[in-house]
């Protein structure tokens, strides 16, 4: 069962959790803005709230400011305006509890995968050298790289590099994982593995903030999402709440399309459309089985009946446009 379905199955209007401060949010930003030298506004007054324990999809076309936002959250880039908080702690204290993949893997080509992880582990002031060997072996094991641990990074394939970057993010106990396009370059098997890894990590209570272009992936993996467009946030919320803004339709396949259209109209369904042997209309919250009963009762030969729920992709396209141009 996917997280999305759990979410939709939750009672509507459930009482919000107590408190509303950063204590409940893994990431909060208020008016976060980055204007690069040269005037390029990469992130524009961003107000994000990533609930603790969520798997939060961060979506947006190329150049919409996702990586820049992540760089600001990690203290790599200073915001021009606004502020943010990670895990409700000062950044230096928060970062040891945050594992991150930013804009793809970057390692020392002449070192082995294992030696690379040792290097980044040494950079963390809270990590203990005595436990490094065990933690590194565990991280490599988790991403399926144990066999290639001793191989030089130079000789890693793209997918192996991506896995090593994820392993580096898992070197310690993390409360928050920030993953910038973690499945870039992975084969379908690797993509599935990352997805299940993310779910496994989230099940341990770790918040996962993951940027992606792959909407189907976000839909399967995330409980929440935010959508960026040219540096601005255009939507955020649970996956279900994002989708609920779009219309759910019913589609009837039948040789008696005219009759079917008439029946649907008589039932009071809006926006009835027919094309060939297919009739669609807005479902508007009705039970599909009642519609089926009505159709059959009127003698319409129903070959198929389906509820067409808008996908995240429809939401995304509606908010960011169909165009193939990059933002910025």
């Amino acid at each position, binding site marked *: *069962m*996917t997280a*999305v*379905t759990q*979410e*939709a199955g939750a009672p509507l209007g*459930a009482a*919000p*959790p107590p408190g509303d401060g950063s204590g*409940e949010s893994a990431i909060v930003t208020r008016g976060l803005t980055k204007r*690069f030298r040269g005037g390029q506004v990469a992130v524009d007054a961003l107000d994000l*709230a990533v*609930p*603790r324990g*969520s798997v939060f999809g961060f979506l947006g076309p190329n150049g919409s400011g996702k990586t820049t936002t992540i*760089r600001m959250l990690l*203290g*790599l*880039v*200073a915001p021009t305006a606004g502020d943010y908080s990670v895990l409700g702690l000062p*950044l230096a*204290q928060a*970062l*040891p*509890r945050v594992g991150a993949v*930013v*804009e*793809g893997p*970057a*390692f*020392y080509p002449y070192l082995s995968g294992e030696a690379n992880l*040792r290097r*980044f*582990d*040494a*950079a*963390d*002031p*809270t990590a203990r*050298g005595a436990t490094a060997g065990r933690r590194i072996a565990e991280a490599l094991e988790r991403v399926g790289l144990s066999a290639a641990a001793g191989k030089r990074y130079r000789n890693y394939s793209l997918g192996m590099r991506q896995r090593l970057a994820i392993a580096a993010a898992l070197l310690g*106990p993390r*409360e928050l994982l920030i993953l910038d396009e973690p499945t870039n370059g992975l084969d379908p098997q690797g993509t599935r593995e990352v997805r299940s890894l993310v779910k496994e990590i*989230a099940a*341990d*209570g770790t918040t996962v903030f993951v940027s992606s272009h792959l909407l189907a992936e976000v839909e399967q993996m995330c409980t929440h999402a935010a959508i960026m467009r040219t540096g601005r946030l*255009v*939507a955020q919320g*649970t996956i*279900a709440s994002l*989708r*609920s803004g779009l219309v*759910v339709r019913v589609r009837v396949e039948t040789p008696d399309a005219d009759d079917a259209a008439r029946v649907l109209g008589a039932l009071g369904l809006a926006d009835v459309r027919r094309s060939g042997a297919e009739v669609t209309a807005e*479902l508007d*919250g*009705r039970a*599909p089985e009642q519609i089926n009963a009505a159709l059959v009762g009127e003698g319409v030969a129903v070959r198929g009946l*389906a509820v067409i*729920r808008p996908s995240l992709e429809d*939401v995304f396209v*509606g908010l960011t446009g169909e165009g193939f141009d990059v933002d910025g």
Partner: protein
Amino acid sequence: MSTADATAGATAGTRARRTPGLVPVKETLRSAERRPRHPAERGTPAARSPWSFWRLLRSELGLTFRRPRNLLMLAALGVVPVVIGVALRVVAGEDGMGGIIEDVAGNSLMLTFVSFSFLVLLLMPVVVSVVAGDSIAGEAGAGTLRYLLAAPAGRTRLLAVKYLNAVVFAYAVTAVVALSALATGLALFPAGDVTLLSGTTISMGEGLLRIVIAVGYVGAGMAALAAVALALSTFTEVSIGAIAATIVLIIVCQVLRAIPELGEITPYLLPTRFTNFDAVLRDPVDTAALGEGLLAFGAYIVLFGSIAWARFSGKDITS
């Protein structure tokens, strides 16, 4: 479409329709049910490991001294005194001795000073510049800098580690030259009392001590140069740029020194002080010259260290 999806769709459909827009996140928060399993872990400040600075420095040194490029440069520097020694031996054997050749051929320890005076002008500075100039720019160019800082290495802490690493390398460079020259000298020339530039003679033990002082002084000079290279390294993501800029600076200084009309500024140029190590060949040791040199090195380290820190601590890491 799965049946689960269809159910979800039906449920979602019963809700009032809403235009997509800013949806308050707290609306359907389920975070209460997804609390970390070990809430005690939360909020407790992550303890800094007391040895973490030295662990990072050790990692840095390991990277520097295992990197084939750096080892190759050290080896090449080690060969130069051998070449100089052999050449002097051949020359000394052929015709009548005189000047520097007589000094060296007369005593095995002198080769160290001769090697320094050859190498300190360009070759040693170049080798130190490669490591120090690469230190920040190389990580930035490779993208590893963003992961180090996200770890979080800490900017001031990382800069300090990078500089200490460069200082250790600067002393390694100096020591390699001294040891190679000493070994070559002992193999090719007679050991014994050392005649200084001022004409007086000191014992061989005293001579060795003066070599140690010279190594300390030349190493400090190289460390000052490393501060310049480190500062330049924080301004670029291309390590060749920082390295080349440092080398160009050294060469420009050498050219300026050669122009007699500019005699007034030469004391302020770093390379001018590099050759002051010959103060140990006076009797007594010219401590004033060494002191002035060390003061100049200290000033360079403070100035360029501050520039490096000011630049690096506020820099946007976009690589």
